[in-house]
């Protein structure tokens, strides 16, 4: 299957502060009771949002400015915990096309990449400036250029970090690599044949 090349992503953003936001929070386990990924977007951060409402606050995902947001700005170790792909799927289906953060958990990062959700990193200070700028003006367009490796917003710009394989996969449109793995399958069979174990 051919995927489209993703060279840049832009749009307005949601700022979600906090380190170690785990995938149980992004999509609580009871919403995994489904055989499809459809409709997950409605329940993204369900419990966090309910808790905020109960305390009289407004979760960033419920703020009026969140409607139509395509960029999510986070802190450290975003997506840690459970390997559930439901987490990036829920974010993607909610309209996000990039997550900009200080760092990401390994499995969340690879799950996101497989569905074309770009996760790019900025230094801690840069994330803080970006968060402040967006919080000051939620309508601002945040742009991430994967080719030039730069994030921009409100006339400022910051260098992004993206592992070379992820950059290559996104800008060449090979982010869903299943097709690649099936090419020249004789090579795979050769590895299999040499394995010392079987069942």
């Amino acid at each position: 299957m051919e995927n489209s090349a993703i060279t840049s992503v832009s749009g307005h953003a949601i700022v979600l502060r906090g380190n170690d936001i785990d995938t149980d929070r992004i999509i609580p386990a009871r919403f995994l009771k489904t055989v499809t990924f459809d409709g997950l977007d409605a329940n993204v951060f369900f419990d966090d949002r309910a808790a905020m409402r109960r305390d009289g606050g407004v979760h960033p995902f419920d703020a009026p400015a969140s409607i139509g947001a395509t960029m999510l700005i986070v802190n450290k170790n975003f997506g840690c915990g459970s390997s559930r792909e439901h987490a990036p799927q829920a974010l993607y289906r909610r309209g996000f096309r990039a997550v900009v953060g200080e760092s990401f958990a390994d499995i969340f990062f690879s799950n996101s990449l497989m569905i074309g959700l770009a996760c790019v990193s900025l230094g801690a200070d840069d994330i803080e400036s970006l968060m402040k700028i967006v919080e000051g003006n939620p309508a601002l367009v945040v742009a991430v250029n994967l080719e030039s490796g730069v994030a921009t917003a409100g006339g400022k710009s910051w260098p992004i970090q993206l592992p070379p394989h992820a950059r290559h996969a996104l800008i060449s449109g090979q982010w869903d690599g299943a097709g690649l793995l099936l090419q020249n399958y004789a090579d795979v069979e050769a590895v299999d044949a040499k394995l010392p174990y079987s069942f």
Partner: protein
Amino acid sequence: MAQTLFEKVWNQHAVRQLPTGQTQLYIGLHLIHEVTSPQAFDMLRARGWTVRAPHRTFATVDHIVPTASVARPFQDAMAEQMTAALEKSCLEHKIPLFDLSSGRQGIVHVIGPELGLTQPGMTIACGDSHTSTHGAFGALAFGIGTSQVRDVLASQCLAMTPLKVRRISVSGNLAAGVYAKDIILTIIQRLGVEGGVGFAYEYAGDTIERLTMDERMTICNMSIEGGARIGYVNPDETTADYLAGRLFAPIGANFVAAKKRWAALASDPGARYDDEVSFRAEEIAPTVTWGTNPGQSIGVGDRLPAGADPDSLAFMGFRAGQPIAGTKVDVAFIGSCTNGRLSDLREAARVIAGRKVAPNVRAMVVPGSQAVRKAAEKEGLHEIFQAAGFDWRGAGCSMCLAMNPDRLNGSEVCASSSNRNFKGRQGSPTGRTLLMSPAMVAAAAIEGAVVDVRKILTLEGR
């Protein structure tokens, strides 16, 4: 050149370098379960692909299955639908399924080793982050997402980036009442929940070498809670002894040959590591989490740190500086892929024997597999638990993630032998989880509060 186990196993399974720069890695064993596979089978069907190596694929049901009545159809229509979907896919693709009637069903990370499917030197993948458990055998075992489950089904391969290796050595003698769970909680506390991102953790040192396979599994299991996608222990005699005679393990001359091969997989002396850290076993105490991630833990005799994260404190209803001992608990849960094996139940039963669960505490034991349950019953452990007031359940994930009816209510506090204390993890958005060893959970159940297990029972040192 001297190599780590990681390098040896990786190289043996590397097919080629992909245009993205990643490695196409062959997967020797693929384990699947009902929650993260239905969408993967749908993607496969949508593309007209088939399962490439059904003989390297094994399935079970664990996450959503009820642990009380398992009569079909399940009361929960969604649990029924997800289980039926897996049954249909397994039938269609000729994948062996260890279902509830098999006598071999259980948490995927408990039954893999138990059946002898998990062996040293393999690459293993499963749509579950705690796949790191299987590393206890000297395998490279990766937790993956659903699109990657599809990739493995279709191609028996994954696109992966090699990991750095951090050698974590633990040496010295564990004090009485201190367990593998305390070792890994201490490691995560020190290195951080993000400290292992990009790393494989190699656990070594004389303390680790003396651990049983069950204990090594507890440690490797929680590698992911430290951010490391995989963790492993070099295979040795203990590993081979565990596998001898297991259903899918090699037998006779094949076993002898395999044993030799397994021993050679261990990291060579002089192998280069990207990082090395060490721990002293004597310094590890029975450990309890106080916060909302597994790195937020202290010794049971300690007070919450002065600089404790305010958000975690608020959620847990704790104050910085307060002791963790004495915290009232409402629920006690013994089970999960971290601590739901026979030895875990034995240790908990030793604490409970002849005692009673405190009034107002709801206590349950959920064996990690049907085989664990059966073996425990053969030893009479279920009677000890039941006499104390524990609920004795069927096998599954149960209250580790609460996708079945076992869950916390409101802001109940749960002493839990599982692996995650995330907000909402045990089924109630405001429920609170304190992670600890099974013996400590047993002690908390009796006391009705967090207590040092060593006060309940004088155990022998090791």
